[in-house]
């Protein structure tokens, strides 16, 4: 199985010829102006990648095409829920694709916490993480992902792209479950540290 997609050309410059911030602008324009041109630019970049994501989850090509289309329809219909203060556009699009994948392929709903806007981000009751809930910096994250060792990225990709649980990753790679978890912890720790978080 092909796991490695390393050393690919950094694509921050060419999200359909746009930067990450232009992706945010496009999604915002879809939400606010029902901007069809902006939506088509989003489709051009994301639909083929969402389709690829669905194929990695084990769907056949036609179903993956259909699920990618359905994700794009949901992006159009839910765009007004996107809050640029909280997440990068790519993060929001990933969540829409992931939740649709779970709903259609696994037949259940992934529960996520929905916070009332007035509660965030100040409701930390002295936990010492006042600035914690700000939006993660997508460009910084992209650079950090490229620095992760191959064995950590393999485990991360199996979880994200194939939706494998820790025990399934352990079986697939023939490594103990403790190793799967420690690689995930190392990868996430490095990313969070690089993002400037207090670990």
């Amino acid at each position, binding site marked *: 199985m092909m796991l490695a*997609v390393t050393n*690919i050309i950094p694509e921050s410059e060419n*999200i359909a010829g746009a930067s990450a911030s232009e992706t945010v602008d496009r999604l915002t324009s879809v939400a606010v102006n029902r901007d069809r041109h902006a939506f*088509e630019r989003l*489709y051009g970049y*994301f*639909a*083929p*990648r969402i*389709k*690829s*994501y669905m*194929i*990695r989850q084990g769907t056949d*090509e036609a179903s*993956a095409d259909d699920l990618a*289309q359905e994700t794009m*329809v949901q992006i*159009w*219909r839910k765009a007004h*829920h996107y809050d640029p203060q909280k*997440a990068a*556009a*790519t993060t*929001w*699009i*990933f969540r829409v694709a992931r939740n649709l*994948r779970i709903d259609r392929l*696994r*037949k*259940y709903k992934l*529960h*996520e916490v*929905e*916070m*009332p806007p007035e509660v*965030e981000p100040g*409701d*930390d009751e002295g936990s010492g993480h006042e600035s*914690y*809930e700000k939006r*993660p910096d*997508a460009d910084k994250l*992209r650079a950090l*992902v490229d620095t992760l060792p191959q064995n950590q990225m393999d485990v991360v990709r199996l*979880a*994200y*792209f194939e*939706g*494998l*649980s*820790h025990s399934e990753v352990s079986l697939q790679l023939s490594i103990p*479950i*403790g190793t799967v978890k*420690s690689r995930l*912890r190392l990868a*996430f720790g490095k*990313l*969070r540290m690089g*993002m400037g978080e207090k670990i």
Partner: protein
Amino acid sequence: MNIKHHPDDATILAYAAGAVTEGFSLVLAAHMESCPHCRGRMAEANALGGELLSEMQPAAMSANGLEDVWSRIDSEPDEEIPAATCHVPVDGVPGILIPYLPDGIDSLHWRSLMPGIRQHVINGIESGRGSVRLLSIAPGTIIPHHTHLGGELTLVIKGAYTDEMGCFQSGDLADLDASVSHQPVAESGEPCICLIATDDRLRFSGVFSRMLQPLIGI
């Protein structure tokens, strides 16, 4: 709320990746309602998903894919999908749990498992070979020593318990896997009510406990 125990990084990543059961997602979301620290970690794990998605090798869409998308969009009125309901804890009970407890946590139909321990199974939540349940443990009661075949997430809703890992109070989440064997003891005062999700069966270590297992069905 002073939360001291949080889910493992590996669990947060699996959650964001969509590689956990529905039951696990429910308990994790319930914890995050009162834990801004973990909401921040989740935001980062979701951002990692976005980053990985945008670096995927593209697979060409069907030739009329975009047209099909427009016809799907235009076939229905362009109504805005309302935002999901927000979750706010009510009397210490996570908001996300409330739809599953229509009569409230104080009038649940508890079933006695063994002296001092009562349970209420929440049905209809995808959990693999595991389950989602509430346990009510009388003050001072000891839960028999057990390990887990898969994972177990325990969120304390009310009261507190202590085990080898420390003291767990309201809002704390214990994230256990097969490598951990523990023997929780409910603290004195009020009963300890926990929300527990497993994704596989538990394994009790003593002979007496093993006999109980089929009965309890944990």
